[in-house]
């Protein structure tokens, strides 16, 4: 059983939901990321989604676009991101790490090379926004041969037939995008999410994480009532943006937001 699956099984026993923060690797600079990851774990993160910076993040709103730009100013490459995960693993053997990003940096590195290096660095899963299941084919096989879970996105507009297709390729968890839009958009509607989760759960065997539009403890707690995991990105990345020149302060503020969510979810 993968580190991600074991984690969800363990949380289920405890009656808890997974808190899954996203930060972009290398934001505001590469030296901060590993400390940030440890900080997130202390604040209550169960899984870390680590963004691989990309020049054209077309599914992301301005917050994460700018995070990518800050990281790319320091030339943060996919290899650098893997090195960060390896460093994180030296003192954390338990918290699953999912790399989230776009396909082209992986294409450039080569699927075999990437999958092998990711596994050796201690990466547990990959979420490639622009790798749809029907195009995954051999690549999905390469990822699973290297014990990497493959996390796919499901949107409000995804049909039931397509959810069933996505389910065939999914492992670890699926990521339900709560609203029609890009990251950092307007608030989500919990009743609407709950309704969609019914049709998703009928077709998917892995846990469902919900992201997009989760801003604070209140929204996190509301989503935790209906989902298996709560994914939060832009609300954290905004704190990094506000403190881009004071990385220590960025870690303090990001972890404070996350801790508030943890408390609200577990209450």
């Amino acid at each position, binding site marked *: 059983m993968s580190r991600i699956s074991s984690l969800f099984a363990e949380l289920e026993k405890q009656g808890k939901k997974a808190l899954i923060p996203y930060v972009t690797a290398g934001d505001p600079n590469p030296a901060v990321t590993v400390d940030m990851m440890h900080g997130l774990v202390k604040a209550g993160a169960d899984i870390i989604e680590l963004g691989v910076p990309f020049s*054209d993040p077309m599914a992301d709103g301005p917050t994460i676009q700018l995070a990518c730009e800050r990281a*790319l100013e320091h030339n943060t490459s996919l290899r650098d991101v893997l090195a960060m995960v390896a460093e994180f693993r030296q003192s954390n053997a338990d918290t699953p790490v999912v790399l989230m990003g776009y396909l*082209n940096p*992986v294409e450039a590195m080569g699927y075999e090379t990437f999958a092998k290096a990711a596994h050796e660095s201690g990466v547990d899963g990959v979420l490639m926004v*622009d790798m749809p299941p029907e195009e995954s084919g051999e690549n999905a096989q390469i990822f699973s041969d290297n014990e990497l879970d493959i996390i796919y996105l499901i949107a409000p507009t995804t049909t039931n037939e397509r959810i069933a297709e996505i389910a065939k390729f999914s492992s670890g968890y699926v990521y339900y995008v709560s609203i*029609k839009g890009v990251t950092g958009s307007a608030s989500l509607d919990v009743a609407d999410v709950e309704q969609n989760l019914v049709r998703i759960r009928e077709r998917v065997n892995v846990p469902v994480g919900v992201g997009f539009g989760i801003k604070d403890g209140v929204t996190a707690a509301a989503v935790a009532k209906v989902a298996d995991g709560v994914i939060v990105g832009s609300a954290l990345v905004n704190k990094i943006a506000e403190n881009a020149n004071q990385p220590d302060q960025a870690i303090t503020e990001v972890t404070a937001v996350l801790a508030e969510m943890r408390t609200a979810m577990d209450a």
Partner: protein
Amino acid sequence: MVRRCWLSTLVRKKIIAETGAGQHGVATATVAARLGLECTVFMGSTDVERQKLNVYRMKLLGAKVVAVESGTKTLKDAMNDAMRHWVTHVDDTFYIIGTAAGPHPYPMLVRDFQSIIGRETIRQCDEQIGRQPDAVVACVGGGSNAIGMFYPYLNNRDVRMVGVEAGGYGLFGNDHAAPLCKGRPGVLHGNRTYLMEDENGQIMGTHSVSAGLDYPGVGPEHAWLKDVGRAEYVASTDEEALAAFRDLTRIEGIMPALESSHAIAHGMKMAKEMSSDQVIVINLSGRGDKDIHTVAEIDGLEV
């Protein structure tokens, strides 16, 4: 274009488009005006500046022009922002992509609609010279006019197909927009094709004197035509394109778009190596009025 908009009126009231040179933006704004649809056009802020005439044209037609400030502020960033807008407003908005790239089925749709160019060429050649040309030549940015010209000729192996990319300051450096000549395969905007990218898979900024060719990718069908060897892909530099712009204007009285001028430059090169009874068709994909400011600035004049 009109047919594509008719489709959209059946279900959705708003249309969006991205544009580089503004040609596609103007076309979209025109049919939107004709059909009473709300139209928003995304355009990199660099291109808004260098294609002022088309921006004004779109505004006169009632379209809203959004100047995109992200990334390199050119066509690829306009496409990113159009996609972001589209996924956010998918219930009432239809996205009319202006080139033969993007996620399936866009490359196919755009190819099929643009194929009117090649079909018309076949008919006119039949009527006017009683045979088909020895070569067809078209400029390639995203590659919509070129695929439209090439597609109906695919199975006529006697016709050479030549796509001309933007060579910018020359292919020796990175200041060009010629992914088929100098790029390598990758994934951008939902399709796998040749891209201008660095060793880490980050998309590079491009350079071309023509906004419409200033794109780091190319329609995936061109990538395939290159790989199977059915079409040839070359590049003309900014300088060659400008010279061709002046030549066609002075000699024929036709002012071509700077995009099309790339094809003209290469077509003239090819002609020198062919015999006088052979025929080349060069696709004049756009008119040059919109580029007068750019050319005047190069000449050191203010218009």
